[in-house]
């Protein structure tokens, strides 16, 4: 405490939360540079752009994950919300542009409904978040597999509407999805830093009881945040299927680990109450670049990549995600 106030080095004047964000951004740049050293084409614009597009998927899910982690919750239902959203988009739009708007709304509605169920279960029924969202993940998996008969239904074989797919085409130089992600990021940063809603989130994350006594409707806020998480997962599903063209089973699975890891690497405390989306976005970029640097190393086998990935994440966590001594 005192060291910070008296500290000679100017960057120590940043409080710890801000320092973590700076670290996350620095780590993202560092991994990019390491990739560039190993392979020079890695720092070319097309390569950077490709990485950022993939990072936007992680960034969108991680936004939702961050909202629930900020109040000390967690959303494990992300994988099958993403997957069911992707299939929902395809089967409602049937690949037609004129149905795209309706399909997107329906898909976002699906995410909101799943989030509503999660939130009500956690806030009003008192089910632990881990259990509630894990159960909902199973429910969504079963519903998705059952309703689509294992993705063999007629409407499942459609492609994403071209109007959505164009968000990823690079004819303009920068794909629209990156602008979209930037707008989302600015909006979330604004909501967290400059609105009472954002203040309430931090307040509940630090002490639900004190927030309740201060007149915050903690339960309603919890429900809203789980709904946001569901919506962002659905948004990621839409983006993924528009990028890839067609859905496949299990496409959401990698995003559970990545969304939690991006949030924590970005400086969000898993206990709630601390963290910001700026760090989370940097965390998402760092993770995605790390994976693509590893995939570029052809001398590494697939199994070795998994090991190196785990070891690197541990190394990064050791560097700055440690809790205080007294905790």
């Amino acid at each position: 405490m005192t060291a910070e106030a008296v500290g000679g080095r100017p960057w120590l004047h940043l409080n710890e939360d801000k320092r973590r964000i700076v670290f996350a951004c620095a780590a993202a740049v560092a991994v990019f540079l390491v990739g560039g050293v190993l392979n020079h084409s890695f720092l070319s614009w097309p390569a950077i752009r490709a990485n950022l597009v993939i990072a936007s998927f992680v960034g969108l899910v991680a936004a939702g994950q961050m909202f629930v982690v900020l109040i000390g919750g967690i959303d494990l239902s992300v994988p099958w919300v993403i997957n069911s959203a992707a299939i929902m988009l395809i089967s409602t739009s049937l690949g037609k542009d004129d149905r795209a708007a309706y399909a997107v709304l329906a898909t976002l509605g699906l995410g909101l409904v799943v989030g509503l169920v999660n939130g009500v279960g956690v806030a009003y029924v008192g089910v632990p978040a881990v259990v509630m969202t894990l159960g909902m993940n199973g429910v969504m998996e079963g519903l998705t597999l059952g309703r689509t008969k294992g993705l063999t239904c007629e409407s499942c074989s459609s492609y994403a509407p071209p109007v959505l797919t164009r968000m990823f085409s690079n004819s303009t130089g920068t794909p629209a999805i990156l602008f979209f992600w930037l707008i989302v990021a600015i909006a979330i940063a604004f909501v967290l830093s400059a609105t009472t809603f954002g203040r309430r989130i931090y307040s509940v994350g630090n002490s639900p009881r004190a927030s309740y006594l201060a007149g915050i409707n903690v339960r309603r806020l919890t429900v809203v945040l789980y709904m946001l998480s569901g919506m962002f997962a659905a948004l990621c599903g839409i983006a993924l299927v528009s990028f890839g063209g067609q859905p496949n089973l299990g496409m959401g699975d990698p995003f559970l680990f990545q969304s939690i890891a991006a949030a924590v690497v970005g400086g969000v405390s898993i206990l709630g109450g601390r963290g910001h989306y700026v760090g989370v976005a940097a965390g998402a970029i760092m993770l995605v670049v790390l994976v693509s640097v590893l995939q570029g190393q052809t001398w590494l086998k697939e199994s070795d990549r998994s090991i190196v990935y785990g070891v690197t994440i541990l190394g990064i966590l050791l560097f700055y995600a440690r809790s205080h001594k007294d905790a």
Partner: protein
Amino acid sequence: MSSVNTAPETPAVLSTGRAPMLSRRRHALLQNAPLLLAAIILFGTLALYVFLYHRELDKFPGAFDWTSLTNTALPLVFAAVAQTMVVLTRGIDLSVGGIIDVSNTLAAANMRPSVGSMVFWTCLILLIGALAGLLNGVLVAYARLPPILVTLATLAIFQGIAVRILESPGGHIPSTYTSTFTNTQRPSGLLLVGALVLLWWLFRRTRFGVGVFALGNDEHAALANGLPVRRLKMLVYVMSGVLSAAAGLLVASTTTGGDANAGNIYTLTSIAAVVVGGISFMGGRGSAIGAIFGAFALTLVTSVLFFAHIDRLYTSFYQGLFLIAAVVLGSLAGRLARGGNR
């Protein structure tokens, strides 16, 4: 700046001014309510299983059915107890599935049909499980990293190692090994469950066991009372590693081979079994017996769905509902036992 002055005052007044003490019997009921509920869930599922089995095949499940059910449940039973150890300290171990993968593939790739080889590899694999748990434990207890992140990262590492050991499903487990631990003719597996229950009974009566519960209930109080909190935390992950490795050996024994991905499902199902078993995620409350009940109940659910002619694609839907329902029932029962008012 002395830490004594900044320590928050304990609201001692609040705890003495509480409602009159509960009667002894009601207290015992309250303490064991989650375990009781787990038993009720298990017997409910069991009754449903027997009913559907009889409706379908016009006879009651025989020795063969019970034996095969036990053998199927056995790896999950061990994984669930492994998870219990960690959840009791308010942690979570997502690397359970990864350790099972490593243990399963090591056994399938190396075990030879001689007694010496089987004993040697069993001991070595359990030791490797302990080391894997030690890695988790050191990172959680001494490096002060959140358990969920540590074990997610080590899960990736262990899965990678398992694929290195056995790239494609295969290998071989000696038939004597299978007939010793998961015999299809007689329920030898029940002996292992019995051994696990005995171990739990002993654990509850050791200094270690008491310490784990104290730590789970209130880490600060445990520390203030001079408990070696860090060492206890670390040891809990070591125990989890050993039990997961044992679960992996049982997976190898029932499937008579190795698959680097066979263990992955156990990460989530072990958590589910712990939940159904009534172990609190807030730490310090629960019993491995409950987790064992939970593991059997979850295994039975799969058979129930089969006999109820439910499309296999919907399996996880019903498993998810079962999981949520078990917890909702648990919290409702808890409220009722406390006399209606929260």
